[in-house]
């Protein structure tokens, strides 16, 4: 069976819903001056296990399913959902969603196109990929390993989670597509203590894969080492500097810079409304010529990847900035249509009970010409930040922040000592023009990112090579 057939069997058959029923519901939606409409069926299994104080205290399992019904009329969206997948609930939701328009002429449905894309990840259920006993044992091994690494470790918290998500999206525009999405995540959090000073370290990773991912290349234990290393580094950290300075950002997860400084501001909804600092700047220089930034939802097994987005559109690689010039926005169907461009496969939603909107997938900067060592050697005095806790942006003013939780001073071209965490703040389009060196060491993050927008969380990826930014404000205390 292909994915559409599997999803149909999983989502529609138990409710006795036929394709004819869906056609009728969509027909009812469209009969009321509605340009288009779609139905989004979803069933999600989620489990998590957590260890602390040396014992796996808690396991939890969650099963959610439901259907979201959306009606679109010009710039208007009507939306309703039900956590019962049954015909009367579907009809009731459709009736509510079309409340945005009362009158109008009937429209016809397009012929459904059922051509599944090549999957970017396994269709296997990660929850079944390992016995519960083995999940518990894995957490135990990680705990023992962490405690063996250093006697200063006083607390270890490990969490393991898996998601198995099946979606089916059926639209009046001919969309009839499905996806089966696994997602796993492991996180290790460590508290260390030395002479009364306590510090924490945290590391982890994940992928659209099964739990085997954490055993390959010993990943689980590499995270454990990294969490301990980071906590011990923080024990030695001195106060971070305050003020405007040169900042070198390490490869991988520090690419959160691009997510905040560039990515959100290039989402189609903000640009259609003209509320983004990047609005109306297509074709203009918005970054230094060293910068080429893409959003790519097609990377195999990545946390931010999707075979199709939540509107049934195949994901793609979208060039956002090419050699410093603004080239593209991220679009869902609604905003693409209103801006008269093609959708880019970035229409995403947290679940059936949320409205789709343009969202990032994996956002990263392509490698440049410089050796990472040369970048650090070029800085007389500055900050080298390699790990971050998160960030946020005001897309209208362009102000963005991201908070380092592992950083070092650079003095006379050398990394000298660790400093405490500090928030970095800048103005997106401004900071991007101050990227003066780009390394050849592109790396993507470990698969830990979650992006929040208008109350909706979705998994994303980021990445970048080592880069040097002149003039970022560093929010230390010294």
């Amino acid at each position, binding site marked *: 069976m292909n994915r559409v057939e599997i999803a149909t069997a999983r989502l529609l058959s138990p409710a006795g819903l036929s394709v004819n029923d869906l056609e009728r519901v969509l027909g009812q939606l469209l009969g009321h001056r509605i340009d288009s409409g779609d139905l989004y069926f979803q069933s999600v299994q989620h489990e998590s296990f957590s260890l602390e104080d040396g014992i*796996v205290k808690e396991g939890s399992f*969650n*099963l959610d399913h439901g259907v979201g019904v959306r009606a679109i009329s010009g710039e*208007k969206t009507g*939306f309703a959902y039900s956590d019962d997948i049954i015909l009367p609930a579907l009809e009731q939701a459709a009736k509510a969603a079309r*409340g945005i328009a009362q009158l109008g002429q009937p429209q016809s449905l397009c012929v459904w196109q059922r051509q599944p894309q090549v999957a970017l990840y396994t269709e296997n259920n990660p929850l079944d990929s390992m016995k519960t006993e083995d999940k518990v044992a894995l957490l135990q091994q990680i705990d023992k390993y962490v405690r063996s690494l250093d006697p200063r470790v006083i607390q270890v918290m490990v969490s393991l989670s898996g998601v198995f998500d099946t979606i089916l999206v059926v639209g009046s525009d001919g969309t009839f597509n499905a996806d089966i999405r696994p997602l796993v995540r492991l996180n290790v959090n460590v508290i260390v203590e030395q002479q009364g000073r306590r510090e924490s370290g945290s590391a982890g990773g994940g992928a659209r894969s099964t739990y085997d991912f954490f055993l390959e290349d010993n990943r689980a234990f590499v995270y454990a080492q990294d969490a301990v290393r980071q906590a011990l580094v923080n024990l030695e950290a001195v106060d971070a500097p305050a003020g405007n300075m040169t900042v070198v950002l390490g490869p991988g997860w520090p690419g959160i810079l691009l997510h905040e400084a560039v990515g959100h501001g290039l989402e189609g909804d903000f640009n259609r409304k003209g*509320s983004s600092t990047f609005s109306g700047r297509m074709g203009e220089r918005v970054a230094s010529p060293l910068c080429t930034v893409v959003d790519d939802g097609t990377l195999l097994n990545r946390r931010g990847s999707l075979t199709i987005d939540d509107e049934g559109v195949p994901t793609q690689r979208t060039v956002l900035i090419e050699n410093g010039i603004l080239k593209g926005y991220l679009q869902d169907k609604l905003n693409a249509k209103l801006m008269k461009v093609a959708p880019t496969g970035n229409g995403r939603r947290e679940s059936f009970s949320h*409205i789709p909107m343009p969202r990032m997938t994996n956002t990263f900067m392509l490698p440049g010409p410089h050796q990472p060592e040369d970048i650090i050697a070029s800085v007389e005095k500055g900050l080298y930040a390699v790990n971050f806790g*998160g*960030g946020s942006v005001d897309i209208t003013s362009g102000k963005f922040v991201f908070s380092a939780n592992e950083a070092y001073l650079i003095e006379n071209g050398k990394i000298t000592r660790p400093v405490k965490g500090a928030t970095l703040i800048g103005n997106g389009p401004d900071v991007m023009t101050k990227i003066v060196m780009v390394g050849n060491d592109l790396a993507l993050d470990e698969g830990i990112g979650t992006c929040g927008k208008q109350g909706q969380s979705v998994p994303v990826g980021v990445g970048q090579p080592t880069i040097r930014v002149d003039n970022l404000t560093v929010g230390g205390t010294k």
Partner: protein
Amino acid sequence: MIEFINESQYQQIVHDMLTMARKMGASAAEVGLSSAVGLNVTVRLNEIETLEFNRDKSIAVTVYKGDRKGTASTTDISPASLQATVLAALNLAKLMEPDPFAGLALMSDMATEKLDLDLYYPWDLTVDNAVRIAKACEQSALDIDQRMKSDGATLNSAQGYHVYGNTHGFLGYYPTSKHSLSCVMIAQEANAMERDYEYTLSRKPDLLESPEKIGRAASHRALNRLAARKLPTQKTPVLFHADIAAGIISHFLAAISGGRLFRKSSFLLDSLGKSVFPPHMHIYERPHILGGLGSAPFDSDGVKTQDKDIVDKGVVKSYLLSAYSARKLNLQNTGNAGGAHNILVKSTGEDYAALIKKLDRGLVVTELMGPGINLVTGDYSRGAAGFWVENGKVQYPVHEITIAGNLAQMFKQLIAVGNDVEKRSSIQTGSLLIEEMTLAGS
């Protein structure tokens, strides 16, 4: 418009699941059910932008097999699904490791007395009416100035129903409602755009501020941010405006919560009985305020909530503990599973204008950005925007700066609490004046 929540059915479900769990071999069990229905309308440029009907429910069961614990939840309340959910929790519990501290709260702590906290005021709101109110709000905002650009006005009305039961025979339930109107405006001038918003929030629809007032305030706030400047790096006193001051108090509450304490993940370990704030500081928890945004008759363990002083004369008088964290720490349960319920911070008497005078020269923060809080060490570093004050007067808006310090020290240096109390939060505090922080800028 909003469909009726089936209260007796939900109580029955919780009861049935507890019975099921017992029959299937649980030594103890607890079940929580939350349900909400609502309407959310956003209007932009005098047209509906989104019309959303919300209808959520979720039911979670925790079962114990002796010292072992398993949890499962679902949105599907069909009998087959409820049984499968209990079974999933039991299967997990069997395979977890024994935890001597696991289990229900004490039977004697259950909230057996029924309290009506006046939390439920459903709004018979039609879509047309909701649209009309949101449009009025947006129009008032746009009428303020040519430089305004709308990012929409949103009316949200929701009602919820909460049930919690456990195998002590406790079954508690209460309905709630919450209504809000918000408006987001962008002020444009030259090449700069600044966004800001205003909102009103209440359990009772007739206590919401007028749409016109909210719209106008949103525009004024956005306009006030235009022509913001950067500031040089310096040490400065900082006044956290009441709008955002609850955040500072919430970091304190997080640092004295049981989960962080037994995990040794707090900078306030062993702070009970110690002076954390100056002597003028009093922080109270009052869970039974009628109509209060944080009011609740029982916590998420079914334990009765009660009035208590958390900080008295600057000294920590109580942690925030659940049944589990209390056992871990060998302390009395405080009825705070799930957090605090209505926190009141006593004012030192000054109004906002007096605080600006007292600040004399320094920063007023009206917006904070990013994470930047390390509760293990208390280190604090966040993006900020606000206003610069000199000679006791607001001079100009500022942006693209950070403020940093350590929470332990910031608490000690909290020299004044305004009487301009923010009522839209379950943490009610006035503006907070902190003696010195590091401001980083240009």
